[in-house]
């Protein structure tokens, strides 16, 4: 992992996610606003490419922390910084374990893994933030409502993941020193 380009990428992704990325948000659906989590696409991309699970955990933790710090939620939603960093790291490790059984270049696989990643990460985040709420604010209806929103976000993000992975693939060599995958015979030998 090349950490300096990665930190720059995280900064750019978060700026895009909090500004231009909001153009992709459907603001007034029946379950509330639904928008994509672009940082999750980066995390899934890294989970498919990195060789080292610990490096992946760290990278996902940084991405989650960046999302946590810009989530805009306050005391009405628990407001803690840290749950998304934990949730991203956990979800990335799960994807890392699953990827060996799949053809990771296929868009369907990327969609599926992104869906699992987002459901895990956002489900965990919503659960932790709800537990952190005061007993007066906590309710099953509210928890269920936010979970539905998280589910819609997961589907939406998953749908965009193949495009994101394709775009990030163009810059993969700047981000990842040694990429995952089986060694291929060189052209000369063939």
């Amino acid at each position, binding site marked *: 992992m090349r950490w300096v380009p990665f930190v720059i990428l995280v*900064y*750019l992704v*978060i*700026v*895009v*996610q*909090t*500004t*231009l990325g*909001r*153009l992709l*948000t459907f*603001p*007034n*659906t*029946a379950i*509330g*606003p*639904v*928008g994509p*989590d672009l*940082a999750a696409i980066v995390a899934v991309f890294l989970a498919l490419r990195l060789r*080292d699970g*610990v*490096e992946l*955990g*760290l990278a996902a*933790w940084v991405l989650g*922390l*960046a*999302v*946590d*710090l*810009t*989530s*805009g*939620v*306050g*005391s*009405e*939603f*628990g*407001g*803690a*910084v*840290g*749950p998304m*960093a*934990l949730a991203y*790291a956990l979800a990335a490790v799960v994807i890392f374990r699953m990827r060996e059984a799949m053809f990771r270049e296929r868009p369907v696989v990327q969609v599926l893994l992104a869906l699992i990643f987002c459901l895990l990460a956002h489900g965990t985040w*919503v659960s*932790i933030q709800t537990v*952190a709420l005061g007993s007066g604010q906590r309710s099953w209806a509210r928890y269920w409502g*936010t979970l539905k*929103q998280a589910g819609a*976000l997961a589907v939406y993000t998953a749908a965009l993941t193949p495009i994101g992975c394709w775009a990030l693939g163009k810059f993969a060599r700047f981000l990842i020193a040694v990429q995952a995958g089986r060694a291929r015979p060189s052209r000369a030998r063939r």
Partner: protein
Amino acid sequence: MTKKRVLTAAVALSLVTTVLGDAVGGRLRNLVQPVLSPLGDAGMYLTVAIRKNLAGRAGGDTSPEAVARLRGERDQLLGIAAYWMHESDKRKGQLDELLKFQRSYGPASALPCELIPARVVGEPSLPYARTRSLNVGVADGAGAGQVVLAHDRSKALPSDLAVVTASALVGRISGAGAFSAQLRLVTDPEFKTPALIRRIVDPNNPREIYVTEGAASLQLLNESNNLPIEVQAVGNGRGGLAVADVWRYHSVLPGDLLVTREDRFLPLEVRIGRVSEVRNDPDHANWVIVTVQPELDPAKLRNVFIVVPLAGGPAPRGR
């Protein structure tokens, strides 16, 4: 230190900050916001410009009859505007003379609040909150000759300050750091404000109201019995506000106005939005639930003013 140890330390740190909750979370967010502001400002400029452009294109399917009618109305309004511009210039001259006189001999008068111009520099990264990040580090809009009150910009702004544009309330400050502030939009489910419903008297569409003052009776709404209705408005989380517990006999109709009720944070009456729907309260036969569409689309929000009361306001506090 190995990567494993770094990861362990990071996870432990996250656990600690998670347990510490909003107190630490708010401070950390305020520290990070100024780092994002420079690029976020440019990003929001593009975002708002694109949204406005898209909204303009969406309105392009108007029928030829509607276009002709609108053109006629526009020409008529241009004529009226030209007349009033002329009148306005005349009055302006007279007013300048009077103001000169007032400054020399009259008592001092001022708006009981300071307006801090601010810009939206970011939206939340997750769609669960309806907030905006404001760049309040730059004060602009002050001109020569204006009375400018000193305001130490290195100090944090207090929470709960009202945030308005030039024409409408758009939300309140939910938390603020030294160089950034979080704006909670009026559509956020956590947004609550005391408000007034002002009914529009329309001779073409008369309505009966039940007047409870003196001898209770049914009367037609007119200028003399059109008292504002005191309500509590709450963001509904779906792009509007909900006003519950409104008596049916007030005959609130779509098109009526929701305005702010004066309080210690906003000593002015400012428009919030317009009633878009009135439906029966399923739990109470005599009450209706009113849905209000905000005056301004939060998606196109860019420039705002933060209202800081000069006297009787809250003491400044950060997070």
